[in-house]
Structure formats: C-alpha cells, structure tokens
C-alpha cells in the first residue's frame, strides 16, 4: 500500500498573547491508503491539532505534512488537499451550513465548481452511502445527533475524498448515535476503500481499527495494532486513558494467576479463553 499521508518532524506552536504552547513536538507518521487508524489520547495531547494539519487548516511551525504528495504549505494545492482529505468535526450542530440536508451535502461540490447535474448525482449517492436517503428535504436541526453526523459525513463524501479525518465525531452523541456513526465509517472504509483517521477518547472505538496511535503531551507514545496497544494497560493509565473494562478484567485475572493472554479486546474473546 502506498502512503497517502506522510508527516515528518512536525512541530506546532500556538501563541496566544505571551503564552506559547507546544502542541505537537516532532510527530513522524505514515498513513497508508485504505488504512483505518484510530488516534486516542487525553485532552490536550495534541490529537485535534494533528487532525487539523491533515486538512491544511493548520500549517506546521516546522516539519512537513504531505497529503498524497502535496505539501500543505503550498498555497496552490490548498483546495486539492482539502478535497482529498475531508474533515468531520465534533459538534454536529456547528458544521451544517444549509437549511436542508440536500443543500448541505451540495455545499462542498458547489464550492469546488462541480456542474449542477453532477452535484445532484453526488448528493444522491452520498446520502445513500450514509443511509440517509429520504431525508433530502429535512431541516438539520430536527435530526438526531447521529443523523447530523452522518449528513456531515455525506457532505464530505460528495467532494469524493480519499481520506476522511474525523475529529471526535462521537463525543457528543448518545450510544445509538455513536454506533450509527461508527458503522457508517467502517462501511466506507471497507466498501469504498476510503482511508479513515478517527480521533476519539472512547477506547472501545479503537478495538476494530487496523492501527491505534496513542498520543500524550504532543507526541506519539504508542503505534501499533489494537491488540499490542491495549496490552500496555499500565502505560495507557499513566497517560490518563482507560482500557476497555474487559481488557482491565483480563489484566487483573492474570495478576491473580488465571491463565488468560495479555491482549484480550472483546467480551467474546475473554469468555472463550475462560470457558473454551
């Protein structure tokens, strides 16, 4: 698989008044096309700052971010970068622009100057990809949180991106809404081969990722498949993160002398280990 995003020695400093905050301290990261990556980390660990670099909403203080070979500091490629790596934000209310669902989904392609008949086709197919067909004329404020986030995802799909970056899209949703969004994102990754970078602080959302990246204080502290990352119970706790209760239970059972492997992620796995 080819790299679709490559980040080298990325530093980012925010300056607010006299304060200077070092938000990212030398990030190196390669994302391969088609991967499903989950980034976890406590508040202030820099994960949101990193996400905004993938879409050129922020530019490096030093270092380099390449999206499909395009340097985010190159103003000539700005729109092509934003089209290639679409972004979904945390608050479902504050990213929908228009007064109806279809107008909102059309917003991106309209900005790109796509011809009207093609926009109509893209709106139809994007809404169907997120299972929101039939909601074209609905007003966004009357939808549930999960539906709003799926419309936001459709708005990105209509720009035909290769990467979707989701910045804590489930933080404000109820469990049903969270499940809807996750199912949608996973489907887009598997069926359309869209690369996904999903940022969250819900550990259980990381279980099905290809790769989990743990951030702490502006750096990457762990990077690997979920199994090996979650085996590091103590390190995760030190970073201010939880592990899923079932992983914690497996950890404690091991310490009490029961033979269970280090890398249990799901309820089913633990049960199969204990009662084969």
């Amino acid at each position, binding site marked *: 698989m080819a790299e679709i995003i490559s980040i080298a020695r990325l530093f980012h400093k925010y300056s607010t008044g006299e304060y200077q905050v070092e938000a990212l301290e030398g990030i190196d990261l390669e994302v391969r096309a088609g991967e499903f990556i989950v980034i976890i980390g406590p508040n202030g660990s820099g994960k949101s700052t990193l996400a905004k670099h993938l879409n050129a909403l922020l530019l490096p203080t030093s270092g380099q971010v390449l999206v499909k070979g395009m340097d985010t500091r190159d103003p000539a490629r700005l729109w092509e970068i934003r089209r290639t790596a679409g972004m979904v934000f945390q608050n479902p209310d504050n990213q929908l622009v228009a007064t109806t669902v279809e107008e909102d989904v059309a917003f991106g392609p309209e900005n790109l100057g796509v011809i009207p008949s093609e926009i109509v086709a893209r709106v139809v197919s994007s809404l169907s990809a997120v299972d929101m067909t039939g909601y074209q004329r609905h007003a966004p404020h009357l939808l549930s949180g999960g539906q709003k986030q799926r419309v936001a995802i459709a708005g990105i799909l209509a720009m035909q991106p290769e990467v979707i970056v989701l910045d804590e899209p489930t933080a404000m949703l109820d469990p049903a809404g969270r499940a809807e969004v996750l199912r949608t994102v996973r489907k887009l990754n598997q069926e359309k081969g869209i690369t996904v970078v999903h940022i969250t602080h819900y550990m259980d959302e990381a279980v099905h990722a290809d790769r989990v990246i743990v951030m702490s204080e502006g750096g990457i502290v762990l990077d690997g498949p979920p199994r090996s990352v979650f085996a590091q119970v103590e390190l995760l706790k030190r970073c201010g*993160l939880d592990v899923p209760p079932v992983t914690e239970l497996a950890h404690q059972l091991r310490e009490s002398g029961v033979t269970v492997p280090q890398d249990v992620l799901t309820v089913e796995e633990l049960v199969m280990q204990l*009662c084969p």
Partner: protein
Amino acid sequence: MPIELYDVSYVYAPGTPNAVTALNAVTLRVDDGESLGIIGPTGSGKSTLVQHLNGLLKPARGRVLVDGEDLSQRATNLRNVRRKVGVIFQYPEHQLFEETVAKDIAFGPRNLGVPEAQLQERVRDAMAMVGLPEQLAERSPFELSGGQMRRVAIAGVLAMAPKVLVLDEPTAGLDPRGRAEILAHIRALHHRLGLTLVIVSHNMEDIARMTRRLAVMDRGRVVMDGPTPAVFSQTQRLRGLGLGTPQITAVMEKLRERGLAVRLDVLTVEEARDEIVAGLNRGQSGA
C-alpha cells in the same frame, strides 16, 4: 427529604397535532441519602422527568412532592424548592456568564437571598467540594479548561447548599481523566456530605460505579426499578429496550451461558475478578 412523584404525566405542545406525551403516569420516590440512576433510550422522558424534580415543569396530571410540599400549589415557593434540589443540566459550562469564577458561583446563593457576608464562604466551600484551587476564584471562567469550567458550573449549584443533587449526563464530552475526577468529587459529596444523588446517563459504566438503585425509562414510563446490580443483571430485557449493559455484566452473562457458575449481579472489575476466580476453583473441585 424525599421527592415523591405520583402518577405524573406531561405532554409537550398539548392540543396540537405535534403533541408528545413525554411522561406517562410515572410514580417514583427518591429517599434521603439515596443514589439513584436513571437510564433509558433517547426520547424516553428522562430530561422531562428531571425538570419535574425542581418545578421547572409542572405535571399535566399527577403530583410532585418535595419534602412534603406539592409543587403545583400556588403557595409553594419554587425558589425554596430549587434551593433544596440542585439540578445540573448537560454541558452546564454553557451557562457560565460572570466575569469571575467566584461571582458566577455566587449567582445561585445570591438569588436565594443568602446575605453578602456569607457568600464568600459559600463560594470557597463549593470550590473546595469540586477540587477547584482557590487561586482560580478571581479568574474569568472563560479562560479555564473544559473540565474546570464544568466544575465551576457544578460548584455554582453546590453553593446553594442543596440536599439533593440531580445530574444530567455529568461526564458527557469529557476525556477519561476529566470523567474520573468529576465522578470522584460527586461520590465524595454523596458519601461525606450525605447528599442524595440522582444521575441520568447513557454511560452504563458510570451508572454502575455511582448508583445503588436504578430506574429504567421507556416511552415516558418507568419500566424497571430496583437495586442497580439486579437491574443490570436483566440483560435481555435491557437489550430489548435498545440499552447496553456494563461490559462486565456482559462477560458474566456469557460465562454463565457457557456453564461457569457465576453471579450476574456483578458490576466492578474487582468483584468480577473474585467471582470468576471463585467460579473457576469451584468448577475444578467439582470435576
């Protein structure tokens, strides 16, 4: 100081085609010093119920009694009720408005007529209860981190010295560390100061950790009500309502299905570990 709801119903937009029955003949009693959890799918009436506990909404039918006072009676002083029953809504940091943290926390008690001389003390106590350092008192609340802002908002309700604390999704949107901190402070309020707790949440792990009694709502009715472990052990029924269970409960259920004799009413990782170890030992000695 009990809160009693008798046969309470509430309808939004009554008499219009959009009328929605949000509460349907709810009878519920919250006793002194309890910790009650309320769960239910979105739209099951949890928020409407919460707003009845301090008289923000008046029942269309039925009665709500706080400390024996009927909230529908004209003579009932609602401010007095709101002093006793502190309600903290979802994302309470969105209600902050004063120039300083101290002034914002003082807003509630000042409205209740607490004399100026006592306000400072109230503010200081409330800040201590949620673990806010004193030097933040003169800072603007809008300069604080999200977790700190939420604690300022909670302190603003605690400063009214309520007997009952009602929290709607107290940890929504916080990271694990922020969540653990808030919950630890709330637990201390309950255990050390004896505050009655009512917690509404979608987070089953939080409910499992914080409450001893659990009421389940569905379509405006209370459909289950009992000790938290007992309610959570009815996993099939909860799933039927579209609700999850704590992961630990799910583990225990599956273990039983596969023949390991363990109890279902287990909520914490530690309890589960002991129960499983005991179950495995029993299994070996029996074999």
